[in-house]
Each structure stands twice: as C-alpha cells, then as structure tokens.
C-alpha cells in the first residue's frame, strides 16, 4: 500500500466506527512509515493523521511519531496565532461596519474541526465587498506585526495579499473581493477559536460549493490536489447534511454533487449524505487520486527519464479520476468527448501559448 492510499484513510474530519477499523486494518499492511510525515505534511494532514491513528490504537514507529508530533506542535502554535489575527481583523472590520466573510480553512478550523490545529493552512482567506476593500486593507495594516514587505505586488484581479509577523510566524492574509459564482447570502456565524469573536462564513450550500469548486479548480495541469480538501468537503457534507438544501444545490450547481460523489472514492461518504444528496455513486473511475502527471505541470526535462511515449500518454491521456475531477463530471458521465477532444485541445492551447510567449521574448 502506498503512502497516498494510506493517508486517504485519514482524510476525514471524523474517523469512527467502520472508518476507524478500516484505518487500523490498513495500518497493519502499511510499511512506508518513514515517508508518512513528509507526505502527510504535503497534504496538510499531519495533525489529523496523527489524531486518527492514535484514536485507532495504531502503534506509529518512533521516528515517524516524533516527526508527526513536531509538525503538530508547529501547527498548534500557528493555529493559535492565526486565530488571534483573524479575531482581531474581524473585530476591526465589524467595528467599521464592514461585512467580512471568512473562507475555507480559516472558517473550517473553528466551524468543522474538533481543534483548530487539526486544519493547517497557508493563508487566512476573507471576502469583502469591492467597495470595502481599501478600508479592510487599511484595518489590516493597523494590526500588530503588519509587515509592508509581505504585500504581494502586481495586478490584484481577485484578491489582495498582505501579511503580518507575529510570535515568530509569518501570517498571510488574502482579502478577496471577487468570488465569481459564490453568493453572499445567509452567512453562517461561528466562534473564532477561543477569541470570543463571532465571525461569519458562507451559507452551508455556498460553502460546500466553494469547497468542491476549490478542489476541482486545483486539479489542473499545473497543480496537484491536497487530501485535506477532500476531508473538508466530505466532513462538511457529513456534519451539515441536514442544513444543506440538496435539491437546490442539484438544480443550481450539479457539478458540486459530481465532485462530492467522486470524493466518495477517496474517503467514503456517510450513508446520510448519499441519501440526503440523492447521489448515484456508480463505478469508481480508474486511478482514484492520481493527479495530472504530464506537461506542463512537470517540465519535459523533469520527465525525460519516462521516455517520450509515457510523457505523451501522461500529458494527453490523464487518469479517469483526474478528468472527472478537473471537468467536474460525475463518475457515470461518458468521458469520450473530454478524453479525445476537450483535453487534447486544452493541451494544444497551452502549447500554443508557450510558443507565443517564447516568440514574444
């Protein structure tokens, strides 16, 4: 069993009953423990993986255990610092009459996960109206530790990136002002850790849309996906199954349910979600979890050892799993058009762009 497959057993917010037994059984077959801490950290799963392994009574080899514990301590401290910064920023915005919506991990850490440290993140993502952007940014610059050198320059098309240095840590804040397709309706309140501040995030429906879209968006020809995103989406659907308007979501955003049904093959959905959402699961796509492994994500030089036929195959004929996820298709959707027309055309488009850029230089 490879490390990715083993980690997928840990890619869920709750791991009890049959899931815990499955994890314990998988641990008996797993031997690549030395690779676990690094891979878990790559997928933002180190604290969650340790949490579930410990609960399942798995004996983690000493070196791997120490490495995981070291990661947890760092993430614990980082979570405390981020929660404090988020609380201060939200409080300042509220005092100034600015409605700020907290997005993704920054919200889920408190709303969904048992402890904020179980949900590591790189940035704090928040969303304000375009008209409030400058004032929100000004409020951020007045927080303790603001560092102007951490401002990301360049055209700010969708978000503005700033940062603070606090308690030895660099805290990056992304202030979004454009989130196409996501509605600012029925925001859900949540307490920001132990700060005493109550912030707001997206509605239940919009959050699930956002999480599934985020995962699909990152399954592209340049990036890889992270297992923590699967844990987010599946965990959120599980926890708030009664509050999500599944019929409305199916009507407005069927691709959200397509992605959710795909994630079932990575980390199983509970029956309550399958029934509540009316999902038809069907056959698993081939190569579940296999990210795009061709060009342009990997340079031709980096892939040289694979040989040209394999490079072409990985580039033009990616895994069924990746095709379904990238194009947000259900696992029952015929793939012919995407496999033989749309994806090759997309690669041709990237090739054309590359040639154009080189000529321009």
């Amino acid at each position: 069993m490879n490390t990715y497959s083993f980690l997928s057993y840990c890619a869920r917010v709750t791991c009890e009953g049959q899931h815990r037994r499955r994890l314990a059984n998988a641990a008996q077959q797993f031997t690549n423990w030395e690779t676990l801490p690094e891979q878990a950290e790559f997928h933002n799963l180190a604290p969650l993986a340790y949490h579930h392994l410990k609960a399942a009574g798995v004996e983690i080899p000493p070196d791997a255990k120490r490495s995981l514990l070291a990661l947890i301590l760092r993430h614990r401290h980082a979570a405390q610092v981020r929660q404090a910064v988020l609380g201060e920023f939200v409080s300042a915005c509220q005092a100034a009459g600015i409605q700020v919506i907290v997005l993704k991990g920054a919200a889920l850490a408190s709303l969904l996960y048992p402890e904020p440290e179980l949900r590591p993140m790189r940035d704090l993502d928040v969303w304000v109206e375009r008209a409030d952007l400058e004032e929100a940014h000004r409020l951020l610059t007045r927080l303790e530790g603001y560092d102007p050198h951490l401002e990301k320059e360049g055209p700010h098309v969708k978000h503005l990136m700033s940062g603070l240095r606090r308690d030895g840590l660099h805290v990056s804040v992304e202030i979004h002002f454009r989130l196409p397709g996501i509605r600012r309706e029925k925001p859900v309140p949540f307490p920001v850790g132990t700060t005493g501040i109550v912030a707001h995030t997206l509605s239940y429906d919009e959050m699930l849309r956002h999480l599934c879209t985020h995962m699909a968006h990152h399954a592209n020809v340049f990036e890889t996906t992270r297992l923590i995103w699967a844990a987010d989406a599946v965990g959120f659907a599980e926890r708030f199954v009664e509050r999500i308007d599944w019929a409305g979501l199916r009507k407005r955003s069927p691709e959200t349910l397509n992605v959710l049904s795909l994630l079932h093959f990575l980390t199983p959905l509970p029956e309550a979600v399958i029934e509540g959402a009316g999902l038809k699961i069907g056959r698993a796509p081939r190569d579940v979890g296999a990210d795009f492994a061709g060009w342009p994500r990997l340079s031709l030089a980096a892939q040289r050892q694979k040989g040209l036929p394999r490079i072409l195959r990985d580039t033009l004929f990616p895994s069924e799993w990746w095709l379904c996820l990238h194009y947000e298709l259900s696992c029952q959707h015929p793939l012919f058009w995407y496999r033989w027309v749309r994806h090759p055309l997309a690669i041709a488009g990237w090739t054309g762009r590359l040639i154009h850029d080189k000529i321009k230089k």
Partner: protein
Amino acid sequence: MERKPKRNLEYRLEEIDGELLLFHPGDTKMVYCNQTASLIWQLCDGTRSVQQIIDLLAAAYPEAAESIAEDVNGTLQQFEQHGAIQLQ
C-alpha cells in the same frame, strides 16, 4: 566554563504525547529533549555559568554526577547549534 547560556525567547519547549520538543514556531528545526535536557533548558536564563549548571545538577542527581558534565556540555552544544541559546 564561565560562559553563561541564555535562552532564545523565540524557542519553546513543549511536551506532547510523552515527547519533549524544543522548537521555533517559524522554523522546521526541532530538538528532541529528554528530562535532563529539559532541566538544562530551564536553567539557561543567562545568570548561571555552564559550571554552575553542572554543579547544580550534580548536587540534585549525585548518582549521575560522573556523566552530568558530559550531558550538560553535549546538550548545550546541541542547543547552540540550533540557535536555541547563546553562550554569553
């Protein structure tokens, strides 16, 4: 031996699941400590010389007096290499 070790205040020593770890929040470096190393860390307040730390621990643990000096010096060297202390 007259040099006085002082803790870098950005470093933290914390216990988690039976392990004592000395770490800097913004860094990937970690020092795995045992109980002796933890005691030595606590004594690195910039007021005690290395010899004073050795003497203190030897008095507290007479049965281990022979190896205390080596333990203290080895631990302080490790701390210094990681930037966790400065020898003033």
